[in-house]
């Protein structure tokens, strides 16, 4: 009994000291988040088997007003445990025949601060789909409920086996990418609708990302000496161990996951942007891409700092994985992220930059503004895509703002590329932007949560203006960084900032906009139906006086006549947007008018004392509303210009003749 008591005291003291260390400030001057959770991990990597085993000390603070009797932990590596996990789908198709391709995570023992064994109270649950084979969420019944304001401290041992087939995380030969790899608390939060407090801890789905509290991490990794290691933290110490091993201690603060990578052949490059030290880990033979990645990082830091808010961490690590590790490419872990993993890309094609700056953009939209990626994927992917498109076109697009592919022969803007994916999708109307990430039907997750959301954000910017849009995001950052904003919080910010900047110019609020975009399956399409001009003659008519009919001649004073021009516009889509209409007259004058776009059709009528001919009519001539799915019918002209098409035909014809010539040996 005595020895058990002593053991509990020792555990309690150790846990408290760990918590103190976790609450300490090493990376940042002061905590950026409430640090409701924290982790101290001491693990060893067996690079032959892909097993990471070690200890975990973690804490969670009950911020709710009621006692909590259970904890929920993410056990995401179990997504690779069987072919019937929710991640691997309901079809049960075998992911592999090799044992090494599977992955798992096991908690070997678990105790609270008092030394109570919690392992016996552990149970896998499937809150999303009831899948009995899924073991990615663990419920831990607590021996003692956690009172409001109290801290739950957990200590234990765990073992993680990485899958040999890399899907975001895993290993291949001696390349390791390790993410979502330790037991991690869900988020205990208050429901916005019911007001109840509950664990938000979803299963791991193939089309979903993550949701967690900002935490501090102290991570000690022991692994063979030959490995070059990169993590989302800063290194505190490194010591060489017997048997060719080394032991590194890392510290990370206020990020939502601690990911790391190890590979002996990484080439390491360093750069700096203001206070941020940039580390690039890149596969050999890609020297020509080093400048491109580092440039993209600096451009993103500059652009988003100016327009959204500062990047607070003093470090960031970019990983350009080798071809064998491409499955880990294009993922974000805030202070560490992976880029494209593509060996070669012509300079005109900015895919490496796009991936790099998109993933770094997530440091803001999910990293700092930690929205729920499971439930509102548009709030991280859509918003990040919107900024990615702006940054790519701004820095790499030149005068035309066409930055994704910028070559003399072909120019494509990132915004247009995203728009094309939405416009050309046959499934663009099957759902709106509100489903949870794994519930998007007919493979629309990517198109809807990335492209459609980015597109309507561009349209919003087209309405309220670029400066107001930037101010919206600055305010969103001020209010919600290092918290968990929901979509409605973003809408509230939009309403407040737009009212402050523009009054009621766009209505009492901007809810109508979100009703038409975020919450709508409709498409936006405005069309110029026709235009015409007719002379309005002076009055004539017949008059009956008794049995006699008199023809009235035009009044001598009524010598004038008017010319009436009518421009017929139509809204053929369901989505309502205010649009600008520009009308070009034959004499060179250009009239600009605005239509609130609400009616299904609109006739713009204007009268002139002289005959004036309309040459063309153009709805949204500056293309501020890329949501419009058909820009071809946005204009009508008396005589269209066929010269660009003729030029295209001449060139194509010449190219074909050269091919003919080449084929005739």
């Amino acid at each position, binding site marked *: 009994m005595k020895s058990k008591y002593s053991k509990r005291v020792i555990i309690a003291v150790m846990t408290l000291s760990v918590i103190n260390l976790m609450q300490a400030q090493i990376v940042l001057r002061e905590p950026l988040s409430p640090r409701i959770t924290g982790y101290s991990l001491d693990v060893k990597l067996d690079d032959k088997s892909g097993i990471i085993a070690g200890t975990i000390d973690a804490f969670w603070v009950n911020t709710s007003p009621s006692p909590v009797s259970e904890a929920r932990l993410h056990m995401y590596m179990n997504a690779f445990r069987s072919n019937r996990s929710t991640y691997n789908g309901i079809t049960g198709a075998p992911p592999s025949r090799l044992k090494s391709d599977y992955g798992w995570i096991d908690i070997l023992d678990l105790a609270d601060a008092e030394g109570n064994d919690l392992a016996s109270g552990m149970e896998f649950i499937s809150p999303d789909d009831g899948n009995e084979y899924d073991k990615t969420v663990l419920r831990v019944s607590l021996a003692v409920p956690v009172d409001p304001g109290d801290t739950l401290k957990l200590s234990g041992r765990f073992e993680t086996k990485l899958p040999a087939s890399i899907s975001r995380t895993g290993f291949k030969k001696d390349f390791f990418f390790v993410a979502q790899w330790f037991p991690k608390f869900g988020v205990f939060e208050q429901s916005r609708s019911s007001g109840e407090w509950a664990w938000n801890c979803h299963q791991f789905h193939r089309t979903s990302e993550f949701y967690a509290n900002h935490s501090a991490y102290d991570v000690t990794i022991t692994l063979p000496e030959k490995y070059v290691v990169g993590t989302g933290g800063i290194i505190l110490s490194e010591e060489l161990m017997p048997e060719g091993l080394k032991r590194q201690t890392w510290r990370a603060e206020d990020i939502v996951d601690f990911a790391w990578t190890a590979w002996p052949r990484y080439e390491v490059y360093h750069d700096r942007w203001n206070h941020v030290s940039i580390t690039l880990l890149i596969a050999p033979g890609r020297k020509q891409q080093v400048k491109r990645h580092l440039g993209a990082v600096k451009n993103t830091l500059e652009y988003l700092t100016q327009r959204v808010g500062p990047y607070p961490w003093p470090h960031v690590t970019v990983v350009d994985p080798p*071809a064998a590790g491409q499955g880990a490419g294009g993922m974000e872990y805030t202070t560490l992220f992976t880029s494209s993993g593509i*060996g070669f890309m012509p300079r005109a094609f900015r895919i490496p930059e796009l991936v790099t700056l998109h993933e770094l953009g997530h440091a803001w939209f999910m990293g700092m503004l930690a929205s729920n990626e499971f439930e509102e994927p548009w709030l991280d992917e859509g918003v990040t895509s919107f900024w990615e498109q702006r940054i790519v076109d701004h820095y790499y697009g030149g005068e035309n703002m066409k930055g994704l592919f910028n070559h003399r022969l072909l120019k494509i803007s990132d915004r247009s590329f995203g728009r094309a994916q939405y416009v050309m999708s046959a499934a663009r109307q099957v759902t709106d932007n509100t489903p949870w990430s794994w519930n998007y039907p007919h493979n629309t997750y990517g198109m809807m949560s990335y492209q459609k959301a980015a597109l309507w954000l561009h349209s919003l910017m087209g309405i309220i203006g670029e400066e107001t849009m930037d101010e919206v995001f600055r305010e969103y950052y001020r209010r919600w960084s290092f918290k968990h904003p929901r979509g409605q919080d973003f809408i509230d910010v939009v309403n407040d900032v737009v009212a402050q900047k523009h009054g009621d110019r766009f209505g009492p609020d901007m809810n109508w906009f979100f009703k038409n975009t975020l919450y709508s399956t409709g498409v936006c399409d405005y069309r110029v139906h026709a235009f015409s001009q007719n002379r309005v003659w002076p009055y004539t008519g017949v008059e009956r006086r008794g049995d006699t009919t008199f023809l009235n001649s035009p009044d001598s004073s009524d010598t004038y006549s008017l010319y009436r021009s009518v421009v017929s516009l139509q809204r053929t889509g369901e989505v309502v947007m205010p649009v600008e209409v520009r009308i070009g007259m034959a004499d060179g004058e250009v009239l600009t008018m605005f239509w609130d776009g609400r009616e299904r059709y609109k006739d713009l009528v204007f009268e002139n004392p002289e005959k004036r001919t309309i040459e063309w009519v153009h709805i949204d001539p500056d293309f501020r509303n890329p949501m419009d799915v058909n820009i071809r019918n946005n204009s009508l002209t008396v005589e269209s210009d066929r010269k660009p*098409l003729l030029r*295209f035909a001449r060139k194509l014809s010449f190219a*074909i003749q050269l091919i003919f010539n080449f084929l005739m040996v």
Partner: protein
Amino acid sequence: MSLLSLYRAGFRKSVRSFRPIVLLWIISLAGSLLVVAPLERNIGSILDGTLASELLYDGFDIDVFADIMHAIMPALAAFSITFLLVTAILFLANTFITAGLYRILAGNWKKPYRRRIFLRGADRGFGGFLFVALATGALIVITVLLIVIVPAVILTAAGATFQVIRYTGLATGFLVILALPVFLLTADYARAMLTADKYLSPFRAMTGAARSIMKRKFFRLWIAMMLIILFSALAGFAGMKLVVYSKASAGAGLFVLLIVSQLFVFLKSWIRVFRYGTVTAIFESVKD
């Protein structure tokens, strides 16, 4: 014969073949128009009456094409089918004309051009020339597969770095370029042999041609062919630079674009006939 006198002989022979060269150019232009015109008309009719075509002044505009993609899909499908059909027809027509051409190129360059001789040569030599063209094409494709593609696939499967694959590709590509004059020399020489001997089988002509060029001053012949290939490639490259990068946007500019592009096509056709003439001159010098 020296390299220069070979070229001089080839040039004189090609000048005499002006009319078949014009014919080659005309079928090339007609073929390309058959492929391009329907697509251009289709896109033109879709964009007719709108300002959207103005967005194409900067070249391909993804916003415009994304919007019209569904509408032009049938035209694009027709484009690829027409392209394949026209290429096949042009291949046959080109073989027919080449057979006639060789008949004109053979012998004294001062002889006047006779349409009857051209047609008779074309008629008589078509089968043999078709075999030579197909066999040469197949040989080139097989060589590219074996020397360039297979090593690249093996390296990729073995997990080689992109740099290794790239440099290997460059090296093997260079080897193919070095081998190309041999294939063309053999083909052209075999054609000259077929023209000179109407009873010779095309297969024997090709093997005989290969033997012959290997035996007699191979390096000089290889240089002669390589220079012609380089000249032709240079003409193609210059044409691409001038025409494809053109930003002509007025009626006159478009007309100039048409003329310049067709001049380059004509030049390329002439270089090919010059190549035939030069090899015929080599064959005749050996025969004499």
